[in-house]
């Protein structure tokens, strides 16, 4: 199994490059405009795959707090003491710094008793970035398709070389 572990350490990154190159090749080499745009989408999704792969952590779960963590936080006002005790049982470190307030009397930290281990959850930052990238991808795809339809309206074809021929022949 060691051989597989060596492979599994990096293979995501290799395959993302392969998918991306498939997309890039289609973007440059294909003649059909819709095909080019499909290639573009594949190219962009491959980049998103790369980013998402960065954020994976072994043994980590989705970046949403466990139910009981949230629960402890939300009922903090009513059952502050019990939540406090529960958390100190589990994690002996978090006693100081409770209930800090700023100069207006507002709490500076929500549910300070809840202790979150940084390695329990996957890296949320890359997910945020990739949400944006997906949106950008669909926006570009939409604009590309609109231009394709406009070209079809004007030249009657969606093959790039045919359009070039039409322009050269002066139509």
């Amino acid at each position, binding site marked *: 199994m060691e051989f597989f572990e060596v492979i599994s350490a990096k293979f995501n*990154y290799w395959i993302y490059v392969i998918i991306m190159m498939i997309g*890039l090749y289609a973007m440059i*080499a294909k003649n059909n405009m819709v095909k080019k745009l499909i290639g573009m989408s594949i190219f962009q999704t491959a980049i998103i795959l790369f980013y998402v792969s960065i954020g*994976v952590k072994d043994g*980590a779960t989705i970046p*949403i707090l466990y139910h009981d963590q*949230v629960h402890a936080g939300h009922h903090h006002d009513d059952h502050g003491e019990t939540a406090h005790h529960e958390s100190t049982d589990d994690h002996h470190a978090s006693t100081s710094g409770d209930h800090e307030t700023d100069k207006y009397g507002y709490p500076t930290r929500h*549910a300070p008793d809840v202790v979150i281990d940084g390695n329990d959850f996957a890296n949320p930052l890359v997910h*945020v970035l990739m949400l944006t990238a997906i949106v950008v991808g669909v926006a570009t795809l939409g604009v590309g398709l609109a231009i394709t339809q406009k070209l079809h309206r004007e030249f009657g074809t969606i093959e790039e070389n045919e359009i070039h021929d039409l322009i050269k022949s002066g139509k």
Partner: protein
Amino acid sequence: MKSLALISVVITGWLLLSAVGDFPDWGDPDSPANSYRLSQHFVTETFHETAVPNMVTAVLADYRGYDTMFETVVIFTAGIAIISILRVFRTEDPGAGGPKVYEKRPDLIVDTTCRLMIPIIQLFALYVIAHGHHSPGGGFQGGVIFGASFILIALSRDMQAAHKWVPERRVLNLAGIGILIYAGFGLASMFLGYNFLDYAILHKIIPATPIEARYHSMLGVEIGVAFTVTAIMYSIYSNLASKGTMKEGL
């Protein structure tokens, strides 16, 4: 063109693969990206600073809210761009519709199924928008689903039926209002004396602590995103499906 493409693909691929050996292992919790204070802060402090259990929503709408505002702007831009490129306002060109797809016949099964499904889809979309703080989802996903429900109306009946629900002008209004809601939260915090998009100061106008103000503002912002995305997704579909004439869909 093919050989040029092959050469550039091979060079790029080789370049990208040559760096893979330099990456930390896949899934390594101690890799720089996962162990640096940026990611660690987002995991461990988000709940304390914003009271939102879904870290992705919190980072999306608050820490990187400026990015998300422009993400919404990208969608809005795409909608306006497609209208400006494709939309035929005057019907001077009868051939603009392209090849006739097929004669639309009302189909009982499709129509009834969609009648049943559409309210459920819309309800689910609202749930996704509103529950984005606690579960996967949020304004963008909910907006796409909501937009898809209108697309389904246009697909199952015809585009005129969908236009009764969402006429073109209403679509654009919704899209603009969505962004105004988002940017309005930013502007409100600016007028109250904090930086743009610093929701904490909004506790002065909504009865909440600064942290709760962040929590509630994020919901407002997500609703703004959902407005824009719903409207623009339908707008893009209706333009592409009718080739800019808005007469008949697929």
